[in-house]
């Protein structure tokens, strides 16, 4: 056990003492970005009930092997953009192409079957069936394909086997896979979700706040998984409020402000302070003339 003086300890030092080793960082070094576009959003506009745009004319591409970070203060259109890509809401104009297929108006299931992995921002609300056992939670979102289904039947043996794999590979701490998802800690719930999405071999991963509300150890595991998948060619769209995480994991960062993408930044050349000033719109005052900053 270590005792430190509250006056001269930094948050980083304290976290290191808590995990008992050097603090993991989200930093990624080598680029694995390719030219192949896996997710393309073009001129996407979403309107709210009062016909006001929540997402306004947003365009971007995510390439194979790339992590595209989306920065922005919450409520600047990120949730609506996520809805349009997952397919739970349809855009009023614009298009979403996934792996070369236009999925703008495709149902959620087609997108999931087409290789869209989704780590939702609120795991209790959108990610889990809290009253169902872990092995059923592991099937959610993939219940139409093997190993979870055989034709019209649920493959219980296959589902359980896959859940054990997730438990093993993603270090989900649980007494067994029959307990309900409610019984797990937040970090373990999140690892279960990441594991189920990763083992389904996605071509595009949409990760919204993947490390929110989980402990430092679990956080490092999640970062490792995203890095590993990236090097294997996954295209990741990462939404996060953790600026260190965004800067560390992303190959490029776009900033969302009032529903628009207002800047594209190179994470190697910025710190969280600069990024923060873009998010609040402060930095934009100086660069309004050039409209977009390509660092």
């Amino acid at each position, binding site marked *: 056990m270590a005792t430190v003086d509250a006056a001269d300890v930094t948050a980083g030092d304290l976290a290191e003492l808590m995990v008992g080793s050097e603090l993991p960082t989200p930093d990624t070094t080598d680029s694995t970005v390719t030219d192949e576009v896996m997710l393309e959003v073009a001129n996407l506009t979403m309107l709210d009930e009062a016909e006001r745009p929540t997402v306004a004319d947003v365009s971007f591409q995510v390439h194979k092997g790339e992590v595209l970070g989306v920065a922005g203060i919450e409520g600047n259109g990120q949730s609506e953009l996520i809805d349009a890509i997952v397919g739970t809401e349809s855009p009023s104009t614009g298009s979403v192409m996934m792996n070369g297929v236009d999925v703008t108006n495709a149902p959620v299931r087609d997108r999931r079957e087409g290789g869209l992995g989704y780590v939702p921002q609120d795991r209790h609300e959108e990610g*889990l*069936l809290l009253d*169902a056992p872990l092995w059923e939670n592991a099937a*959610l979102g993939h*219940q139409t394909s093997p190993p979870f289904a055989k034709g*019209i039947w649920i493959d*219980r043996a296959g589902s359980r086997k896959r859940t054990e794999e997730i438990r093993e590979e993603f270090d989900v701490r649980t007494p067994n896979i029959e*307990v309900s998802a*409610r*019984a797990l800690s937040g970090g373990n719930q999140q690892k279960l979700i990441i594991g189920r999405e990763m083992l389904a071999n996605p071509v595009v991963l949409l990760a919204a706040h993947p490390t929110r509300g989980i402990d430092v150890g679990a956080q490092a595991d999640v970062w490792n998984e995203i890095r590993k998948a990236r090097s294997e060619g996954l295209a990741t769209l990462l939404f996060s409020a953790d600026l260190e995480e965004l800067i560390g994991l992303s190959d490029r960062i776009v900033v969302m402000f009032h529903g628009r993408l207002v800047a594209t930044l190179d994470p190697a050349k910025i710190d969280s302070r600069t990024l923060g000033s873009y998010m609040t719109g402060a930095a934009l005052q100086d660069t309004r003339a050039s409209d977009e900053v390509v660092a």
Partner: protein
Amino acid sequence: MNPLLRRAGVTLAAPAMAFVFAVVISSIVLEISGSNSYETYKTLLENGSRLETMIDTLNRATPLYIAGIAAAIGFRMNLFNIGIEGQYVLAAFAAAVVGSQVSLPGPLHVAVIVATAMIVGGAFSGLAALLKVYRGVNEVIATIMLNFIAIGGIIAAIFPRVIDRSPNAANNAGTPKIAESGWLPDLNWLVEIFTRDIGKGRELTGVLLIAMAVGIGFSVFVNRTRYGFDLRASGMNPIAARAGGVPPGRMILIAMILSGAAAGLIGMPEILSDTHSYDQGFVRGLGFGGLAVALLGRNSAGGIVFAALLFGFLDSSSAILQVSGSASASIVVIMQATILLAAVVAYEVVNRYRQRDEIQRASTEMEAAP
């Protein structure tokens, strides 16, 4: 403690608590109303052990069971199909009319009647589903209204035109009696395997077998198929289900149509085994009974068996209590209501305990094994 035993104990705790509570309340009501509660329970038990009561109980439990399954299909995805009442009465009416118009060889005739009932029931509850999916109408409101439209509207309009007015028609005005090829054989041969006693003119309805098939079909569908998974997922967490690719509109349609199709079978004992026609004395209220039975049986095929048998037994006992003078027949309704109320509260209490217990055990087990 052995985890299986523990789980069984927790599962049985709620019904046991509800039963004790219901007996206490019913006893108090009996004593207040001037009956001897001990004598009343004795009469109930003595009567219940007689063969004809058992057959009567099964006959009453059969449609209640089907109604319970129909309700459970909706409940499993948080849909409240209050329209089971209207769906089954309308379905039975249509089946009786169609059945009396056609003449076919035995099994086919029965199949046509059953199919008519399921299609009419499914289509009628499908209306409520369409209203919900395309117009956002709450299914509770829609199905309640459709109950009135079915019974007070459609049947009231058509019934006078199809009443049997032939000289040898029954006194109780109804549709023409279905020809004998459209009757379902009774199951008394099954009873005779177990006992030499004759059920004193009672016939065990063949619809019991249909009810069993419905129960097994429900259980397999909900627990083993992908559609059942989608249905349960939508019931547990509609937002997560949707993000997981479950099409919400289609699931509402599927669930409501299946619920209505099952509801269509509720009137079959009357049509296939009893009166063989739809008449003015056609049995009502089974739709609401089904909601109660589904609640008591926790929406599971097995649980609803016990719930339907219990309610069927109490229903069949009400006449005996009246005749023996030990208590008013209404005590049965009071007992059913207290059992249901107590069960719902007990389930909730046990459920909370179970959740807390599971979280606690999961974390202690993980600490014990690093």
